[in-house]
């Protein structure tokens, strides 16, 4: 018997489970394999849609579906919160005391946001990393009648690296449409020495920031918020006053991964092999998606392209055959759309060896993102693309 246990019912966990079913039908039928997904809520959330609650009229209800409906019927689903992984016993324990045994463990546990790590974040800053927060940001934008908008990043790494730039571009376009642009200042704060981590994307985005009159502040690592004076302060000693403050909250990996000795504190990101996706050299433990420490975008797209690699490695081990090098090594592939505003977008496609060369922004790539968002439920989790 081979028991495959997948922690996390997001893009990575759901897709891996469904791909494993496709490859292991005979073994599942014979009762030689079980596949179980453990998810905290039993609800699958399409997180890239959060930004569109704030910026595009998206509704929170459209971004969640029951995980059960996305999983193949041969995958078991357990709804519960994981408390601990016991590697010696090859078990995981849930908060309610339930224990599950595994032979292969897939950690698709994502990342979590910690706005509370920065004092006054909850009362002073907006973000778009949950449906509720994105809706609050929408309300704040609706109430905005001019002033200084500051967009910044309060900790790296974070989910969907292009999102803060996209939000800056989309807000700038919205302010123009609402005839508020001349009454407003837009400031974009980057923690590093340029607008974006990847140099080629930075080269594309910087002239757009200039053209749109968005002031770029480099090496601005958000450290604190002075709520009384309404200024955001950087580790580097700068201050920026704001009327509307939008910050990417700090992110971490899951606490139980640190408690179980699988991921180092304080970040909680799993030490993951960039090609095999094995965790800390363990033969039977894999990680994908946001949970890893790989120098890649924390994005559903990353998990999407990692899932076939984890699948191939587990299937090869179960079938006792060599790993197909074409399918069993992750090459760092990521692909994502990038909104520019005014109904235009571009595409970022890259891997470990090839940086992205985004095409000139046009309407097609914006529409591509909208279509992808709408068709996601029928394509990605089911392994159809």
């Amino acid at each position, binding site marked *: 018997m081979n028991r495959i246990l997948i922690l996390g019912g997001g893009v990575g966990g759901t897709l891996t489970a469904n791909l494993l079913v496709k490859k292991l039908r005979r073994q599942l039928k014979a009762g030689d394999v079980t596949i179980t997904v453990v998810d905290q809520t039993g609800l699958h959330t399409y997180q890239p849609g959060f930004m569109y609650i704030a910026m595009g009229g998206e509704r929170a209800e459209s971004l969640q579906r029951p995980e059960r409906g996305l999983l193949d019927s041969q995958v078991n689903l357990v709804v519960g919160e994981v408390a601990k992984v016991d590697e010696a016993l090859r078990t995981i324990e849930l908060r309610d005391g339930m224990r599950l045994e595994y032979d292969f463990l897939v950690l698709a546990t994502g990342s979590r946001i910690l706005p509370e790590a920065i004092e006054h974040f909850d009362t002073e800053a907006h973000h778009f990393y949950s449906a509720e927060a994105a809706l609050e940001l929408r309300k704040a934008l609706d109430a905005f009648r001019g002033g200084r908008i500051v967009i910044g990043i309060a900790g*790296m790494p974070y989910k969907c690296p292009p999102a803060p730039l996209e939000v800056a571009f989309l807000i700038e376009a919205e302010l123009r449409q609402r005839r508020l642009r001349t009454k407003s200042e837009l400031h974009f704060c980057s923690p*590093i*020495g340029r607008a974006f*981590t990847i140099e080629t994307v930075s080269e594309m985005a910087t002239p757009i920031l200039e053209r749109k009159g968005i002031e770029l502040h480099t*090496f601005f*690592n958000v450290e604190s918020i002075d709520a009384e004076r309404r200024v955001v302060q950087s580790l580097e*000693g700068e201050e920026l006053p704001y009327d509307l403050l939008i910050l990417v909250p700090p992110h971490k990996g899951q606490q139980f991964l640190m408690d179980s000795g699988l991921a180092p504190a304080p970040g909680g990101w799993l030490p993951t092999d960039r090609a095999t996706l094995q965790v800390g050299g363990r033969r039977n433990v894999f990680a994908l998606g946001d949970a890893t420490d790989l*120098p890649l975008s924390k994005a559903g797209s990353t998990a999407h392209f990692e899932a076939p690699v984890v699948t191939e490695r587990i299937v090869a081990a179960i079938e006792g055959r060599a790993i197909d090098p074409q399918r069993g090594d992750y090459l760092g592939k990521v692909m994502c759309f990038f909104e520019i505003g005014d109904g235009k977008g571009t595409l970022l496609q890259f891997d470990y060896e090839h940086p992205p060369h985004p095409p000139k922004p046009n309407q097609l790539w914006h529409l591509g993102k909208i279509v992808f968002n709408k068709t996601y439920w029928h394509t990605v989790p089911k392994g159809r693309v």
Partner: protein
Amino acid sequence: MTDTLTAPGTTRVVDARGSFCPGPLMELIRAIRESAPGQVIAVYSSDSGSKIDIPKWVEKAGHRLVELARRDGYDEIVVEKTH
């Protein structure tokens, strides 16, 4: 230049070799946040951008660049936290 010992007085080593930009800078920032003024941090980076980005950040943040040395296949950038 071949491998040599890390600068005397170093209180913490951040081995960011194999991490790509901005990983080494972010690792240094984390170390700076966790250190006390006067402490000296050595960053090892195999990313060629670090020897440009890190000194720029150090200057902006008002800390002190103690040493920038080429080692065997990586750069060692030594920074003193001044405040």
